[in-house]
């Protein structure tokens, strides 16, 4: 009997043993971790030494994000903004992954990664302007709150449909590859996204095109109310990489140092070897999906509490930073106070800033306003003139 045979796609060994591949391996893929629950580095983790400056910036970023979420969430509850999404419990993923990147790396986010923008210098005022949809919002008030985007921060504008950014990320990465840039693309998604066709399309395209793109999946256990057990039967997301020929790793998403170290290495491989990398960061969505959701309706409060306290990514990282002598209780309260002041100011300013003008409704659909849209604008203006009481008074005509 022949030992092996050439098929299209390569040489394959032949066997007389009929054996189905099991649907899962005996052991689940382990999760890379650097800091233990008490914030002590695990000696064998080979983690990248982080400078005091970076470590403090990372920690401050996570604290700032948590404060921003708390205050914007409240602002939504008070009816000052229409909608909000928090990153509670997942702060380490956005902030620490951003810290591991170069500002030239291009980010195609989903919607729960404001930590990346924050790290890159998007100000609290800029966040507030977007959430209030005023004329200082770069998106000209067209999208719901939290749909940030910033060209100068290489952060593509968020779109609501799930996973659509993923195949686009491969196209962006292919462009970087062809232009021989020393940069990669990093794109984010949640566990629910991995069920979308676009997820599979993008992994397959990225592998075939040898595109320098790092896929980061925040597996936080929940897609709105759907638990991962009802999302997929595989060992999470990490195992899907191999089927597409993509190098993959599972990491502890609540361990800022693990995220930082793994993304540094992933980025390096993506660029130097011109290949995609898949990272599954295990975490937990401590907050509700959004302000339109009440997650206590479908999951136990004790579970939320456990992740909020015992597995708090801020608390764990703080222990490490503080033990290094880089952070103190005074720093902590000073930061909280500063950030809260800045946020309240930012909200006041954003609230007082004028809404985008009416004509912004019709621009940017195309590079120039075509005649059909001009006609519609004219008709709308006539109607407003006739029935001004039926239209918002705070929109400049």
């Amino acid at each position: 009997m022949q030992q092996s045979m050439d098929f299209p796609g390569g040489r394959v060994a032949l066997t007389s043993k009929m054996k189905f591949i099991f649907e899962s391996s005996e052991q689940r893929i382990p999760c890379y971790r650097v800091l233990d629950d008490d914030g002590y580095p695990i000696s064998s983790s080979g983690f990248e030494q982080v400078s005091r400056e970076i470590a403090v910036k990372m920690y401050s970023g996570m604290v700032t994000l948590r404060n921003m979420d708390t205050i914007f969430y409240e602002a939504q509850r008070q009816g000052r903004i229409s909608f909000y999404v928090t990153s509670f419990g997942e702060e380490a993923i956005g902030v620490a992954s951003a810290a591991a990147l170069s500002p030239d790396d291009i980010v195609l986010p989903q919607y729960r990664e404001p930590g990346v923008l924050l790290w890159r210098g998007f100000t609290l005022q800029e966040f507030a302007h977007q959430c209030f949809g005023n004329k200082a919002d770069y998106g000209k008030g067209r999208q719901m709150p939290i749909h940030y985007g910033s060209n100068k921060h290489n952060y593509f504008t968020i779109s609501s449909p799930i996973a659509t950014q993923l195949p686009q990320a491969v196209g962006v990465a292919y462009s970087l590859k062809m232009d021989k840039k020393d940069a990669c693309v990093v794109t984010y998604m949640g566990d629910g996204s991995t069920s979308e066709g676009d997820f599979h399309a993008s992994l397959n395209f990225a592998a075939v095109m040898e595109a320098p793109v790092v896929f980061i999946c925040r597996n936080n256990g929940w897609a709105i109310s759907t638990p991962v057990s009802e999302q997929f039967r595989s060992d999470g997301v990490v195992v899907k990489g191999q089927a597409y020929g993509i190098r993959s790793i599972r990491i502890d998403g609540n361990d800022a140092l693990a995220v930082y170290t793994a993304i540094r290495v992933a980025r390096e491989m993506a660029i130097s070897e011109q290949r995609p990398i898949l990272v599954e960061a295990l975490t937990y969505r401590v907050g509700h999906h959004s302000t339109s959701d009440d997650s206590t309706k479908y999951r136990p409060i004790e579970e939320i509490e456990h992740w909020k306290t015992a597995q708090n990514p801020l608390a764990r990282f703080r222990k490490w930073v503080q033990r290094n002598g880089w952070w103190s209780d005074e720093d902590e309260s000073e930061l909280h106070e500063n950030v809260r002041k800045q946020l309240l100011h930012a909200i006041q300013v954003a609230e007082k800033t004028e809404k985008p003008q009416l004509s912004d409704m019709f621009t940017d659909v195309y590079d120039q306003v075509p005649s059909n849209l001009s006609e519609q604008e004219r008709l709308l203006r006539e109607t407003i003139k006739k029935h001004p009481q039926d239209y918002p008074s705070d929109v400049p005509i």
Partner: protein
Amino acid sequence: MLSLICLIISGGHPRGFLANKAYVFGEDVGFGGVFRCTTGLVDRFGKRRVFNTPLCEQGIVGFGIGLAAMGNRAIAEIQFADYIFPAFDQIVNEAAKFRYRSGNQFNCGGLTIRAPYGAVGHGGHYHSQSPEAFFCHVPGIKVVIPRSPRQAKGLLLSCIRDPNPVVFFEPKWLYRLAVEEVPEHDYMLPLSEAEVIREGSDITLVGWGAQLSIMEQASFEAEKDGISCELIDLRTLIPWDKEIVEASVKKTGRLLITHEAPVTAGFGAEISASIVERCFLRIEYPCNGPQCDITRNIFHLSTMHAQTTRNSNR
């Protein structure tokens, strides 16, 4: 004399164009494509500029959006318009809204999606559809359909260079049948401008793509009965040239629109509604929606009869 196939090739890659950050890709594009539209491109521009993609339409368009967002000309091919629907979300929710949602911080204007469409005499409902109306409902993209090889080259070059994403449907019928002299030089035809290709005084006929030759035949027939037809090729379906159609109907007082696509909620209804609104007092006869039974028969007939029906009705 060039067939439409050849002209698409020259339209896709006049010298120096691909060198300027342009990419051509899609299923089977590398070897020249199932309609041979990209024959020879790989040899000239290399496998990194002209390449096969995995068989996945949403991947092709999503990838193209990303490529275009980086300032490239992304020329994506969907093998048949019938198979464009997996990419519908990427076209409607992503490409079309990319600029708008970002406040013009980002755009994917360099994206052109080419897809062979329409009846070809066989192929039935998975190789002959005319899905243009689905896309005409979407602000943010342009939809362009050429009627002839010469038009196709000029319009395609305009689409590729237009700073907005465009869906470019190529009538398959023309791949095989149309023969026309196509200039070799680089030229562009304007988008959103219809063209009066035959002047007349009694009735205005509006169509696009392969319909134009059928309508032209019909106007010759009508002429024998003393009816003078004004024939308009819409060329760009969105944003479309209302003014030229309006001016014509104000002159003739009658309008007939035909398309290969299904009648209900077809783009003909849109034209009809707009023109009634603009020319209400001038219309002498109710606007005909797409009433061209010839093409509707072709659309619904079995593959065996389609071509003969078309011929016998011409």
